[in-house]
């Protein structure tokens, strides 16, 4: 079930209303039922996989807890078993074909016969998210940061909580399990919290339906046939995808956080104005925060982090970003995308000191707005460039795309209206621009005032607050990209 589906518009109010009025002791069970129903709407059979990941990590947590400090071998065995089983399931469904294909290519290069094995399985939605959430819990128990969860219902809900089940945020056990323990005491009918959650969901729908899906039209048009376009259109396609992925993913997170908030739960923030980052490291503190902090806590730091010298730190950064890239998808494009981000950070660190020396010598005011703006622009350019690898079907396609950007200059395209042929006509392009202005305004609000849109609105007069919310709602239902695409030209065949 997608958030932007009619099903969800029925499911969510029903789930919340029942949750609000059933006896408190049944709340966990009700949300668990809702969560499994939510997942099973996509594919009922694959609910077994969540149940398996839940049971494995739940059992591992109990074993680690009961083994105590003395039986380190048992603790370690439980930890490793949980990781092997859960990552094994993940590997089987997500990476098996990719691995076989990659080995076959390598064999072909060496002149050997390719492997014949391949699996015809559907990738379970959200498997990377709930697997990592479950493994994060096992690691937390192993480190003694949280006690093992004894209540299976609580734990099952922790893994499968429907707002964040299929696309995160990847919740941490120390943040979310205590909230589940306290579920009976949640004041469900809290007007301010509910309206705040609903407003956040509304903003998420705006990001998804008005912005992301409209940007996707441009990005898809260009990325599907890069050979048909020259530099300007290719850059427009790259920028469209840059904004699309932010709006799409940011929207999902906002709807998830908002939906959880309506029910009285606090999920972690996943995006914090990432395109205003002043460096790649800063970008990763703002982009998909739940995932980047997961990799920091459970990969980078266990590898030694920055505690074992400069070279090792760089190696750790690269390994972490390669893993992060692979987590996103079973394709070398994602690996290269991760590698690029790792390389950006390593190179940035290497150049940091000499660049600072040059800037000091030139008396550049590094705290000035103009310099910070330059850094933001530079970071945005690097991030956008890297997204080409993320969006392209293959590495070859990505290099072809980049090659054309640099070899087919056509600045006149900025003036001859040809950009209106990238899937959005003039009117649609203006709708998109207006929506982007709203997005930037809301992000600036967050950047400068450190507050959400609704928190800002709460400080305003009622007419303004309602006006903004109504305007957002109207923009979503009118300008949203959804439903049967109405086109009068479809009438032509039956003019009479």
């Amino acid at each position, binding site marked *: 079930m997608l958030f932007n589906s*009619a099903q969800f518009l029925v499911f969510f109010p029903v789930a919340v209303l029942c949750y609000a009025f059933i006896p408190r002791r049944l709340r966990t069970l009700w949300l668990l039922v809702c969560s499994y129903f939510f997942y099973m709407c996509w594919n009922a059979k694959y609910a077994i996989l969540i149940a398996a990941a839940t049971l494995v990590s739940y059992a591992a947590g109990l074993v680690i807890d009961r083994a105590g400090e003395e039986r380190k071998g048992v603790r370690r065995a439980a930890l490793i078993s949980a990781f092997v089983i859960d990552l094994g399931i993940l590997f089987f469904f997500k990476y098996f074909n990719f691995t076989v294909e990659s080995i076959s290519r390598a064999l072909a290069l060496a002149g050997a016969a390719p492997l014949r094995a391949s699996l015809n399985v559907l990738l379970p939605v959200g498997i990377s998210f709930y697997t990592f959430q479950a493994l994060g819990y096992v690691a937390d128990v192993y480190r003694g940061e949280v006690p093992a969860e004894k209540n299976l219902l609580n734990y099952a809900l922790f893994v499968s909580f429907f707002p964040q089940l299929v696309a995160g945020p990847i919740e941490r056990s120390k943040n979310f399990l205590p909230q589940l323990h306290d579920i009976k005491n949640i004041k469900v009918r809290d*007007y301010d919290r509910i309206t705040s959650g609903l407003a956040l969901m509304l903003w998420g729908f705006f990001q998804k339906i008005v912005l992301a899906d409209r940007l996707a039209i441009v990005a898809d048009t260009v990325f599907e046939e890069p050979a048909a376009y020259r530099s300007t259109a290719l850059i427009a396609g790259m920028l469209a995808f840059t904004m699309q992925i932010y709006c799409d993913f940011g929207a999902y997170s906002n709807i998830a956080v908002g939906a959880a908030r309506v029910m009285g739960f606090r999920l972690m923030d996943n995006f914090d104005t990432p395109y205003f980052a002043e460096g790649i490291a800063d970008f990763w503190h703002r982009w998909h925060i739940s995932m980047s902090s997961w990799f920091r806590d459970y990969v980078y730091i266990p590898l030694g982090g920055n505690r074992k010298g400069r070279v090792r730190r760089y190696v750790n950064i690269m390994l972490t970003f390669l893993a992060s890239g692979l987590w996103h998808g079973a394709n070398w494009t994602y690996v290269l995308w991760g590698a690029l981000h790792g390389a950006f950070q390593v190179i940035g660190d290497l150049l940091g000191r000499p660049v600072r020396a040059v800037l000091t010598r030139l008396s550049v005011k590094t705290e000035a707005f103009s310099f910070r703006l330059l850094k933001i622009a530079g970071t945005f350019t690097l991030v956008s460039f890297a997204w080409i690898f993320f969006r392209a079907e293959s590495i070859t396609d990505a290099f072809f795309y980049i090659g054309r950007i640099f070899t087919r200059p056509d600045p006149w395209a900025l003036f001859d209206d040809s950009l209106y042929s990238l899937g959005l*006509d003039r*009117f*649609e392009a203006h709708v998109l621009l207006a929506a982007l202005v709203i997005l930037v305004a809301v992000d600036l609000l967050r950047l400068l005032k450190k507050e959400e849109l609704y928190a800002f609105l709460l400080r305003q007069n*009622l007419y303004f607050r*309602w006006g903004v*919310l*109504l305007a957002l*709602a*109207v923009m979503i*239902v*009118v*300008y*949203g990209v*959804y*439903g*049967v*695409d*109405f086109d*009068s030209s*479809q*009438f032509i*065949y*039956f*003019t*009479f």
Partner: protein
Amino acid sequence: MKKFAATVILIALTILAFAGIYRVLSWKDTMGDYLSSVQQLYATDRNTIDVLFVGSSHVYGDINPDVIWREQGFSSFDMAISGQDAPAAYHYTLEALKTQSPQVVMVDLLAASFEEGTTGNTYRSMLPMRTGVNQVRMVMEDPNTEKNRGDYILKWPVIHSRYRELGAYDFITNDYSDYGRGYCYRFTVADIPHDPAWDALTEADELSERNRKWIDDLVTLSEEREFELAFTLLPYEIHEWDRRIYNGIFAYLDELEVPYLTDRALFECSCLDYETDYLDFDHLNASGGEKLSRWLGGYLASHYALEDHRGDAAYHQWDESLAWADRLCLGQEIMEMNVPTPYFERISGEEGLVTLVWLDGDYASSSLNLERAGESLGLKGGFFERQGVAVIRDGKLLAYLNSDPGEDYFLDLDETQILKVHSSSDAKHPCDVFLNGELVFEPFDGLGVLVWDPLTGTVLDKKIFY
């Protein structure tokens, strides 16, 4: 309590806002007069339709309720939608029966020739019908909407993207009764080469299950709702494969003893002519429609006990429709006139017309007797001895432009149209005429005229007399 009240008010405001937006975005027949016959049906007073004609463009192109009203005095209505398929015909009959109790329902058989899975104009069928059980059932039975049923039932997911094509008629509500009783006037004449090869074909296909069910459902409905059911096959260029289907249906209708009128019977009884009465291969033009409707009206009057309602105020919509139709026909008539005197006499006395007359040259001494014709329009005091542009409405001179070349004259014609006359010092080119900023006429020297009609909201004619 305060917060609860605020929530209720916000929800109410949201509903109001969306209701207003829906009204604007709701589907209008953007290919026609921003109306559909469904909307005209909804705007028709309850229980005023005596005979309901159901079908596709063949119905709204061939059967003219205005002619039937004028000739026979019973009220009829074309419940017709472009490309209407069999399920839509059934459900729209049901929809009409919610507010009307026709004595006779005549369903055209064209839909029977549609192949399995072929649906007519989905938007036109699905979107104008009011939300309800009947609408949901129609959507559910339509194979074309299989993947988007929810969208078509809710309508909003389909119509919301009309924001790209909004126009004046999305904001201004038409007076539906001004736009006829479902008939579509088209005056174009096409000489249709007719192939008589298939006319006499008697072989018949076996009736398909789909068509049998359609006919059975309509027969059952006629029994339940107590109306006389009949079928028509309106004349069009029918090929062998369709003729076989229709022959199969005629055989079944004979079996059921349900009356029907074949295309050949209608053609011959109406004395239609392939050279003058056709718009194209599929439809009659206004002339053909007049002939067919005149005969069909007589047929219905002689076979069913239909009352003459002329003069009854309850049937005012048919009178209004006739007045509207007369204006359309007036436009056609004057378009074909090339002599100014009878032209001016013909339009004089027609209520509400806005007429622009311009001239360059002395016509007072001509043999055309323009002074008398001009007077009938409201042009007095030797207008035809002067040069310039006269703007006349309802026999009154609104403006006379000739003193200040370059002068602009503006007139609000109706809610949506503004007339602008830009007079010029160029004797060869006395003025430019604009409607809503768009140049509609650029007359050259001589005597010229432009006639705009408020009833139809159109320019009926514009010409220079030679």
